[in-house]
């Protein structure tokens, strides 16, 4: 273990001694060289492990990018992102994903519009209104439901919701309306759990001060608590939005997956995620490359959401 000692031993230990003069670490100057080298080697091993996460993100971007970028070169970035025609198997194949992007956004925003108010209301209920006894039951239930696989939500949407909506609308029941409900239910637990954390982390003194001035419970919630938890709630909603736009299996089961620009909320549609599932089994050549191109777009959208949460949290940190 003490084979390599000259260069490392002279410079590195000093740095480490300085490092470890924290309140909870021993001074390593009294430690034998072999122990020191072992400790340093382990520390570097852990650093490598921590870097696996960075490497993983880069690998995903590189591999999906490597497989997908030729389509940008072929059709041009503007035509790929801005084209309305997705006709991969036509004589003159066209790979425009704008309609898919718009469909994804419609599905996501609709689900969010239904789900987010319910979720925030549930969070307020759990943290402010419910008695401890009720909370004890409802909270674990909501948390556990966050773990239910998306394919089960899809099954519920396909076999339970779709017939109801088909009857109400007179169509087949595949379409935005069904997808909105399924996505809303799916993102409910996520948004509710994180919003509730944000509400509960508000010191109770703030509530007491509000009540002491004669505010009612609702005035306290609306004027004091929701503004105070704003950043956390926005984070939760963005997280839910990221989950909804990346959701595949639940949507593919209720969307009907027709390759058209849908002419109504009860008509089948195709999104960025579902086009991959539907087309992948038979896609080849440029078509396959285009699907990887769609995956690049999805990857970048999810990165943008993460970055947005970072920026908002930082702004919130500066405010307070």
């Amino acid at each position, binding site marked *: 273990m003490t084979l390599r000692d000259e260069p490392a031993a002279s410079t590195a230990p000093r740095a480490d001694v300085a490092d470890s003069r924290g309140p909870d670490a021993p001074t390593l100057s009294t430690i034998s060289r072999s122990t020191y080298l072992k400790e340093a080697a382990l520390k570097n091993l852990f650093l490598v492990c*921590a870097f696996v996460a960075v490497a993983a993100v880069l690998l995903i971007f590189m591999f999906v990018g490597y497989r997908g970028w030729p389509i940008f070169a072929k059709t041009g970035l503007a035509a790929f992102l801005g084209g309305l025609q997705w006709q991969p198997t036509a004589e003159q194949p066209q790979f425009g994903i704008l309609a898919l992007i718009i469909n994804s956004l419609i599905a996501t925003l609709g689900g969010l519009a239904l789900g987010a108010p319910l979720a925030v209301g549930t969070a307020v209920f759990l943290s402010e209104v419910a008695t401890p006894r009720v909370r004890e039951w409802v909270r674990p239930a909501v948390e556990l439901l966050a*773990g239910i696989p998306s394919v089960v939500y899809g*099954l519920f949407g396909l076999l339970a919701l779709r017939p109801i909506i088909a009857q109400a609308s007179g169509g087949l029941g595949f379409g935005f309306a069904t997808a909105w409900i399924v996505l809303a239910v799916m993102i409910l637990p996520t948004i509710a759990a994180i919003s509730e954390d944000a509400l509960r982390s508000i010191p109770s003194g703030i509530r007491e001060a509000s009540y002491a001035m004669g505010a009612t419970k609702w005035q306290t919630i609306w004027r004091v608590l929701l503004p105070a938890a704003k950043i956390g709630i926005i984070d939760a909603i963005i997280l839910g939005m990221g989950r909804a736009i990346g959701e595949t299996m639940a949507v593919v089961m209720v969307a009907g997956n027709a390759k058209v620009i849908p002419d109504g909320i009860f008509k089948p549609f195709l999104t960025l995620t579902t086009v991959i599932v539907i087309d992948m089994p038979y896609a080849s050549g440029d078509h396959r490359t285009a699907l990887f191109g769609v*995956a690049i777009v999805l990857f970048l959208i999810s990165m943008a959401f993460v970055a947005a949460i970072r920026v908002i949290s930082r702004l919130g940190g500066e405010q307070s």
Partner: protein
Amino acid sequence: MSGRRGVIDKRVTNAAALAVIWVCALTTVAFLGSLLLYVVINGIRELTPAFIFTWPHGVNMEGGIWPTIQSTIYVTVLAMVIVTPVAVLAAVYLAEYAVQGRLVRTIRFAADSLAAVPSIVMGLFGMALFVEGMGLQFSTLAGALALSFLMLPIVMRTTEEAIRAVPKYIRWGSYGLGASKWQTVSRIVLPAASPRILTGLLLAMGRAAGETAVVIYTMGTMIAAPVSPLDPGRTMPVHVMLMAMEGINLKAAYGTALLLVIMVLAFNLTARYIVRRNRRMQG
């Protein structure tokens, strides 16, 4: 809104608003409850020993679903074996060794990003790298490797929280006895944090077991009972999706979905139980 000019009595607004909040909560519970009830009511009749322990046969996949259960457990456990050492040691670095700075911020940002990557993108990536790039074909190993990417940020975060929750004075005691940093971490901190680390692992396994989009492109959809890691297989979520979408055997879809829900809930409930018991012992 809330009695701004004293036009509406604030007590009236209060009662109305609280009623709305109650309605929100009840709607949420009703939605989620009906989802669970629906799966249970439709699935419970299918859950016979013959359904669980026999192979499917015929064009309509009559009979049981045993190979899909075996595939699911196999790929989930394999993914856990792959991810645990890396994720736990990464968390040890972040919680015990790292000095806050740009490096740690980068690692955290990467972990957050990894957690946010849509599973379909993860699936295509797994196909590009493991199935085609590394020549693993559709196999349990390719599926497990892709799933381990999905589990990594979950296990890292929960383990880091678990390590940070270990009281400082326990470390001081260890250092006071002359232990080195690694001795302290490996013999004192990690054992003390182990129940909560296990919780994180169980949560990640629950997530992996229910994942569809990742495994469909890395393990394939062939019904098989994988023995070697290089064998392909069809996991339970994939089976549910295919049965439901092709509409050929809805009974099998319901039964598999219920079994899957039970499995995932078992992971999650065990995780909660461990946290609870641990808290009681410490408190």
